[in-house]
């Protein structure tokens, strides 16, 4: 477990846990957006599943589901990390997830993955 368990010893400095939870959750939400977009594009059955609102099609389920994942992950991480200091390696994980999100929403990249 890479999370530092000890609560901050200083009463002056706000622990970084709440902020890190928000940052990592944003990364998770962006990655979920990209991955759901890819899955909806690559598999017709997934695309149909994500069609929550017919006039918008797959995009409705992709975005609604990504928001749900983002908010749930934020809730869980905030519950675990609030009032604590966590290691900053999570920043790099958040950057990696953000990059996943950007790449998997880029049509030429997901076409490449599908061999189109």
């Amino acid at each position: 477990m890479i999370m530092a368990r000890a609560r901050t010893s200083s009463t002056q400095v706000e622990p970084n846990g709440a902020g890190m939870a928000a940052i990592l959750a944003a990364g998770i939400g962006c990655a979920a957006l990209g991955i759901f977009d890819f899955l909806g594009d690559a598999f017709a059955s997934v695309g149909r599943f994500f069609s929550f609102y017919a006039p918008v099609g797959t995009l409705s389920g992709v975005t609604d589901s990504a928001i749900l994942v983002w908010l749930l992950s934020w809730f869980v991480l905030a519950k675990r990390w609030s009032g604590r200091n966590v290691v900053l390696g999570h920043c790099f994980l958040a950057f990696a997830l953000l990059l996943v999100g950007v790449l998997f929403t880029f049509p030429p990249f997901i076409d490449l993955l599908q061999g189109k």
Partner: protein
Amino acid sequence: MEISWRDLLTVLHGMGFGALFMMAFSGAIGELYEAWSASPRTTLDPRGQKMLRLYLTGMVVIAWLTVLSGTYIIYPWYRALPPAGTTDLSAFPRSLLLSSPHTSGWHSVGMEWKENVAWMAPIVMTMVAYVYWKYGRGINKHPDMRRAVLVFTAVAFIATGIAGGFGVFLNKNAPVRGGATIQLMPGE
């Protein structure tokens, strides 16, 4: 001088919300960078900090209005399928773009990217506003977290630029039009 109902809502989405959000980034990035700088040239007083909190909250509201109006109001008009046998595709932007190899890329790359990547901006800006509300100037005690928030803000700005840029070109190549006509001014 007339516009259609769909013209009006497309302008509200693109200019009223999207462009306003895009312009707000310059202020947000500059203010956050300065407010969170290790040695700020000026120190925000409590009133200034409150104003920045409200500014960021306003950006979050505008960001969500932009993506929600784009996805649930404009996009259904854009992707509507023409009835069989339709030869004039001007009321069906997606089909119009896909009808020619010279314009199909605007949909298959432009719209396909824009419609998804745009959603990153409200997610990220909600996080940025939350972190500022939570830590304010205190984030200087966590320089890596400060850098992370600034990088996320920059990526949200780029994502907004991609969505906005493609939005403009899509609307130039295949405008979303239709609905009731609104007369803005009588002709001469």
